[in-house]
């Protein structure tokens, strides 16, 4: 076999692998769509959960997801972005920053269920937050913090050194340079990372099972201290029911969840492309 043939062989092998991946996705999606699409309607989205499959809806779970998402964003974005700025701009040489950095890299690789255990110990029990939205959001915030920190650092790193130099040479202080030049130039990248991180949080189930998101909540949340459910929990609950009708509900809820994550990822990709165009200096 000559090199050219090897090349071709490898190419077809790669194409085959890609196709298998795509094929699986297509099978999964069609399956879900066939089962659930006819079930997705306005009533399904706005109905409370019910013991009768055909009356049950995702209102509480969807609102729970929205509450969790917003609160997680409020908690994780400022801390994550600030930590990213600190590590990239200020903490370069300090020992403290080194230790921090190693920890963050490690944290990014920790299975999400571990965050759940941490959340249970710290937020639910020690802080006494119970099975509240706040406890869930704090746990998910912790989970996505490393992603936001890393994205912030990457985005800051991508800002050319010449921009900094120009700002300093005009007499700007370090903070002025960061806030008026570096961050505006990096915000597309930071935002992309933030959205991807949040879209991961939307799909997380394991840590929320542990910190006590309910599978069945019959009222919509009114404050961050309320009990809550989220879409993945609702899906999990329905799938584990023996009745076939609930499987249809689960498929329908999966469609809603997929739409949300695809939408968020779409925004992230759009922002990234726009940012990459802008960033050609």
């Amino acid at each position, binding site marked *: 076999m000559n090199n050219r043939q090897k090349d071709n062989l490898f190419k077809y092998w790669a194409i085959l692998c890609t196709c298998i991946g795509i094929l699986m996705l297509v099978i999964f999606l069609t399956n879900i769509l066939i089962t659930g699409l006819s079930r997705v309607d306005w009533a399904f989205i706005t109905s409370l959960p019910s013991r009768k499959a055909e009356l049950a809806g995702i209102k509480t779970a969807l609102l729970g997801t929205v509450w969790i998402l917003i609160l997680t964003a409020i908690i994780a974005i400022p801390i994550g972005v600030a930590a990213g700025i600190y590590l990239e701009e200020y903490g370069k040489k300090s020992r403290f920053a080194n230790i921090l950095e190693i920890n963050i890299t490690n944290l990014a690789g920790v299975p999400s269920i571990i965050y759940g255990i941490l959340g249970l110990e710290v937020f639910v029990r020690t802080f006494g937050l119970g099975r509240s939205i706040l406890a869930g959001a704090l746990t998910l915030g912790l989970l996505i913090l490393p992603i936001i920190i890393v994205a912030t650092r990457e985005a800051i790193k991508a800002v050319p050194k010449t921009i900094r*130099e*120009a700002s*300093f*040479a*005009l007499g700007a202080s370090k903070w002025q340079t960061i806030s*008026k030049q570096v961050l505006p130039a990096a915000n597309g990248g930071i935002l992309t990372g933030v959205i991807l991180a949040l879209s991961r949080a939307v799909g997380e189930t394991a840590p929320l099972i542990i910190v006590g998101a309910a599978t069945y909540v019959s009222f919509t949340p009114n404050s961050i201290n309320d009990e809550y459910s989220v879409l993945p929990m609702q899906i999990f609950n329905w799938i584990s029911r023996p009745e076939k009708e609930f499987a249809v509900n689960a498929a329908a809820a999966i469609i809603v969840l997929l739409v949300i994550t695809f939408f968020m990822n779409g925004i992230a990709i759009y922002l990234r492309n726009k940012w990459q165009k802008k960033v050609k*200096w």
Partner: protein
Amino acid sequence: MAEKSEVVNFMDYKLTADKVNVWYGNFHALKDISMRIRPNTVTALIGPSGCGKSTFLRLLNRMNDYIEGFRMEGHILIDEKNIYAKRVRVEELRKEVGMVFQKPNPFPKSIYDNVVYGLTIRNVRDKKTLDEACENSLKQAALWDEVKDDLKKSALALSGGQQQRLCIARTLAVKPTIILMDEPASALDPISTAKIEELINELKKYYTIIIVTHNMQQAGRISDRTAFFYLGLLIEYDTTANIFTNPKEEKTQSYITGRFG
């Protein structure tokens, strides 16, 4: 009497470097550099790559301060003040001493925002003041006529030569008295280069200019005095005419005739 003449003499110089030594870690990058520069002159720094021209230039607005391992000894006086004294704030110093870089480096913002950046960071908020500063600086940098219709346009949409003149305008807007230029035309085409040179000739009426260049003809055309650096040493510093027609040092002679470099 002697005392008086000394004072007058001192006042004649805008900038004085006195036995300046610089190290990057263990590397001795500048060795015992002493040099005086008069106001409203153009001084060219020439020499082969790596001889310390940029290092010297960046000493004058303390841009080397950010480099890890940088260390310096000696004194640099601007208007009789030691710019490395403890109480000096670099932000204030850089208002006095502007800098233009080799590659045009406009901010990814509008033309207007680029020009007034140096003012806004000093809390100038008055729209009229900013507008005037913008117009004046762009006019001084010979860019006004080309951009006046669309100051909101992104600076990145300008040509390389226009970007470099924008960077000059941006520097002028904070009203420095000294302008440092590190090979400001080396990334530009001949026409843009000619424009920059013309501009330097014009600016010299109001500013003291120190420029690094690899282009001997350029040094000859625009500078009053030329300093030749070699391996961290200031080999010769004299009027440009003398350096190019009648250098005292053999090294200078061989460098300007292109025998090494």
